[in-house]
């Protein structure tokens, strides 16, 4: 009996000796402490530091030096919020935001530094008054039997039956202009669901990675991303996908998926990017920070964080703008009619 109790005590003691409290090093709730905490979260968890260094020479250590002094001199929390927001803007990433009672810090240059290439007033001239709306998809038939659909957001899921119904109503058209300009994103799953109605087979369209450690280059092996055929109607006629700099996040992802399909031509301006899937964390003072954590690469394993170039670059000309014409939609119409003519010729030959 004594031996048994002795062994139990030894086992318990050995257990206690090998265990301890799991804690995390924390920063002070002071202006400098909060700035250091924010800097540290980005340093350890943000996924594009190495890429940003390669693209435009960002040195994250220098950023700390630059803003630390400013934080120490901050006279109010509102001022500190602006300083920390400015520090995050050094990353040039629209997915990085600081939020608090003072609002949310944004980086908008990815969009605002470029031509807008979209006008909802001009779009009205094309949609007319007979357009339909089905679960966030605005669609109509333009002249010469060209279908036009506008998807302004991926914030909500589409129903397969909604997509199918829209496609069936446009089925007699020669091709589809799918306009996602100014679509700032939403859910990746919504983007994937819509894209899945444009393929009949499983298509390899990119890769996804995540960070495995705190180092700037600690990444998992890129895992392939596939686009699976969706349930319901599939559109296999020519598609022209219209993009501009306002196409961001999951809309950027949608562009990457659609580019992998043979019947799709991307037209317009380069997308805004935002290929990192964001995670969130918080600071000692309770402010929240959102940051890109998982990079998504295209099928050539290239980053799409700073946007995807179109197959055919087209901008709205000032003459067309004044006339209420959308140069990009007109070019897309021509492209589809050209493709339809070529297909007809091919059919006659065969």
């Amino acid at each position, binding site marked *: *009996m004594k*031996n*048994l*109790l002795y*062994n*139990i005590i*030894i*086992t*318990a003691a*050995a*257990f206690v000796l*090998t*265990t*301890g*409290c*799991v*804690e*995390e090093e*924390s920063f002070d709730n002071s202006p400098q402490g909060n700035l250091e*905490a924010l800097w540290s*979260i980005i340093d350890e*968890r943000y*996924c594009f530091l190495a890429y940003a260094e390669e693209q435009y020479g960002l040195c994250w250590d220098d950023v700390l030096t630059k803003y630390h002094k400013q934080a120490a001199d901050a006279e109010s929390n509102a001022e500190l919020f602006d300083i920390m927001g400015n520090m995050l803007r050094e990353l040039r990433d629209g997915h990085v935001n600081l939020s608090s*009672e003072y609002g949310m810090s944004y980086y908008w240059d990815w969009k605002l530094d470029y031509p807008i290439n979209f006008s909802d007033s001009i779009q009205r001239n094309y949609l007319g008054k007979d357009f339909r709306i089905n679960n966030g998809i605005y669609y109509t038939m333009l002249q010469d039997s060209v279908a036009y659909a506008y998807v302004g957001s991926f914030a909500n899921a589409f129903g397969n039956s909604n997509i199918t119904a829209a496609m069936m109503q446009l089925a007699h058209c020669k091709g589809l202009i799918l306009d996602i300009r100014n679509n700032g994103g939403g859910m*990746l*799953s919504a983007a994937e669901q819509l894209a899945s109605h444009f393929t009949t087979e499983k298509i390899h369209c990119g890769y*996804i990675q*995540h*960070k*495995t*450690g*705190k180092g700037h280059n*600690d990444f*998992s092996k890129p*895992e392939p*991303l596939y686009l699976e055929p969706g349930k319901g109607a599939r559109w296999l006629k020519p598609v022209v996908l219209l993009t501009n700099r306002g196409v961001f996040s999951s809309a950027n992802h949608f562009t990457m998926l659609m580019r992998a399909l043979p019947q799709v031509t991307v037209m317009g301006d380069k997308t805004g990017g935002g290929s990192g*899937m*964001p*995670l*969130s*964390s*918080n600071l*000692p*003072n*309770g402010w*929240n920070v*959102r940051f890109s*954590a*998982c990079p998504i690469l295209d099928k050539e394993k290239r980053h799409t964080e700073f946007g995807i170039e179109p197959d055919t670059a087209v901008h709205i000309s000032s003459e067309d703008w004044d006339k209420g014409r959308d140069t990009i939609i007109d070019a897309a119409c021509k492209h589809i009619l050209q493709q339809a003519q070529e297909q007809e010729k091919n059919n006659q030959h065969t």
Partner: protein
Amino acid sequence: MMRNKDTYTILTLLLLLPMLLPSAAVAQHCAHEAINPYRVVQRSTLHGVSLLNTLDTYLSGYDHKGAGYHIQHETLRRAHTGSYNWIFQTRTSATLGIATQHNNSQILLMASRCWSGYHPFAIGRHLKILAGAQIKAEGGALYTPAYSNNPVSAKISATVGASVAAIYTFSIGEKEYKARYTMDLPLTGAMFAPEYGQSYYEIFGLGHTKGIIHISSPLNAPSMVHTFSIDIPTKKSTLRIAYTADIFQSDINHLRTHIYNHSFSVGYVRTIYKVKRNDPIEAYSPL
């Protein structure tokens, strides 16, 4: 592929586990208590308040503190194999609470079920020591409503460990009270943990599940549960007041978690005597 850390974990366990093996051998020699062929089942359901301290670096690097509701159901029964007495325990517990750090809140839901088998040793008239093993399944999540992306951190584990208890019976006046202390120590098992920066979309949306299950040990998941309870006889039943310190911890893939759950609960104990068809009914004893 097994990692170096896992290998180290297994080696540690191999060093720790033999300490229990001599105990089992001695237990066989010491088991000279009279065979009790009667099955006594004791059930208790306790309700209480939990004081919470949560840290999950996947969501936040700072402690969140709060409170919640705790429920615990326990069944104890005696059994015998040959000339040895055993006590089997099943315990199910759940906590729902909210913890905050400044304006941020985390909602916690954790539930566990464990199955323990003990061999009892009487030390004198009043003290009984129980030593045994335990299998535990635990699951739950921390949810941060303020986060638009990836607001959840799931906690799932299955462990095997040691459990010891001491039961002290004492009288005040004509009433007999029972104080019990139990310590559960998970020694090894399997635990879910995403990679450092892996999103749940990648795991559950894309099915990239490779490397999300880890071997747990006191080195990477030093968890334990301490329970102290007192049974107070009342006119028609027995009242149980309990304090439980449930310490759930893990440090896997540079992601650190602790959920310290101190619960104070109260409830009634029901004792059921399951008499087999051929058993005489005059001799039975509660645990």
